Every structure is written in structure tokens, then in C-alpha cells.
């Protein structure tokens, strides 16, 4: 067995642990009737686990890295990644603020609800 086999094996084990941790966190939360862990913490934690797992698989399964032969692959990946950030975060940002551009009365109602102010 050579080094590449161990890179695939460690990729499998690390990914299984990271995915298991994400499912366990949410499972504990749901089973406790949403009492254990706050939503912001959980969303941050599982997104972080997903990014780490994607990094693990890019490195250990797809062998993406700084070595000379894969440098252009990495360059294309980084530019794609920035496009994805713009598309996803940009969409969420715009669509979540779209409600602030309604007619004045609607904006008023929306903001009262959104900021937890009740008349």
C-alpha cells in the first residue's frame, strides 16, 4: 500500500467524522426539542464542518494543491470560488433586503415585524 492509498483512506475517515459530527449536532438539537444549542451557533458550526470537509476532499481525493502540475487547477478553482461567493451571498443580500423597497406602509409593517416591534 502506498502514500496515495493512505491519502484516500484518511480522506474517507476525516470526511466520515466531519459529516457524522454535523448530523450529530443537529440530531441532538432536534431531539432536545430545539433546546440544546442556539440556531446561530448550529448554522455556523455545520457550515464550518462542511467547508472543512470540502477542503479535505479537494486535497485528499482531488489532490488539489500548490505543486506545479496542479497550480492552474487551483487558480481556476479560486476564481470559481469567488464567483460562487458573489452569486450566493449577493443573492441572499439583495433578496433579504428587497422587502425594504416596498410601498411605505408595507415597509413599515415589515420593519415592525422584522425588528420585533409590535403595535
Amino acid at each position: 500500500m502506498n502514500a496515495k492509498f493512505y491519502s484516500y483512506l484518511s480522506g474517507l475517515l476525516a470526511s466520515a467524522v466531519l459529516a457524522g459530527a454535523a448530523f450529530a449536532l443537529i440530531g441532538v438539537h432536534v431531539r432536545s426539542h430545539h433546546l440544546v444549542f442556539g440556531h446561530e451557533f448550529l448554522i455556523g458550526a455545520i457550515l464550518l464542518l462542511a467547508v472543512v470537509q470540502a477542503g479535505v476532499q479537494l486535497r485528499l481525493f482531488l489532490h488539489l494543491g500548490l505543486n506545479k502540475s496542479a497550480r492552474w487547477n487551483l487558480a481556476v478553482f479560486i476564481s470559481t470560488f469567488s464567483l460562487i461567493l458573489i452569486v450566493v451571498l449577493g443573492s441572499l443580500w439583495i433578496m433579504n433586503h428587497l422587502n425594504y423597497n416596498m410601498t411605505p406602509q408595507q415597509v413599515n409593517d415589515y420593519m415592525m415585524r422584522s425588528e420585533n416591534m409590535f403595535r
Partner: protein
Amino acid sequence: MNEALPAIGFQRQERVAFGFWVYLMTDLISFAALFAAFSVLRGSTFGGPDGADLFNLPFVFAETMLLLVSSFTCGLAVLAAEQNKQPRALIWLAVTFLLGGGFLALELNEFSRLVAEGNGPQRSAFLSAFFALVGTHGLHIAVGLLWMAVVALVIWRRGLSSKNFSNLLRLGLFWHFLDIVWIFIFTIVYLMGVL
């Protein structure tokens, strides 16, 4: 094999692999658009069920593990082919095919259950976005399985020529790529869906 050719053949193979990598990255952008649409529409259930009503986490965990292990065995198939061990490469490809087929069967089972319960893509914007995103991934898996069957058949009949090997290498890239997309599907669609 001709002594003068391998270096050129290798360079060509690398160029082809790079071109395929660029295709994968553009495919990733189309997935990003579907993820953006899903994230925007996830709350628009039109009075219908949301993720917490519909998703079954142990079921999704089983799908996740099937696809993860299939990504691993696909790597082992490429590794065996690199070492010119044809029977072993074919066995690992067969294992990968079964695991990937199991994943697709589970996903189709989930889809048909949702549609049978009246929660198909026309139920709400949330479910339209759900079926578009997860269905596109499933379609990629189905195409990958078809490709895998063809690659395995060609390697079985004609051996591990450098052309067949380079085909297998691209299939490996494609399959690992689909598992990486799935990480974000189970995190953003399913895990964040039941919160």
C-alpha cells in the same frame, strides 16, 4: 508502446484533464446558482410543509455515507489502474457503481414519496427549489453511473490503454466533485432545513 511518444501523450493527457477540470468548475457555478435560488426560496413554503416536516435525517445520513464511500472506492479504482492492476480496478469500479446506484435509489425513493404525498415541485417555491437543486445533483449521479458502466465495459473488453485510463481519470474527478457538491446539499438543504 513507442518510446518517443509517452512524454507527449502524458502532456496531452494533462491538458485534457485540465480542460475537464475547467468544465467541472463551470458546472459548480450552475450548482451555485441553484444553491442561491434555494437559499432565497427556502422560507417560501406557501403554507405547505417545510424542511422540518419533510426531511428524515437518518435517511439522509445513509445517503451521505453511501456517496462518501463510493467516492473513496472510485479513488481506489483509479489507484489500481495507475498500478496497472486491471481486475482490481474493475472490482472497485463495480463496488463504486453499486454504492452510487444505492444512493440514487434512496434519492428516487425520497422523491417519489414526496410526490405521492402531494409535496411535489409544484407545491411551493421551497419545494421547486429543492427539486431543482437536489434533482440536478441526482441527474449528475445518474449520468456518472452511465459513464462508469461504459468505462468499466471498455476497460474490461479492451484493457487499460492510455486512452481508457485517461477516461477513468476524468470519471474519478467527476465522481469526487459530485460528492463535494453533496456535502453542501446535506448541510444547507437537509441539516439547515430541519432547524
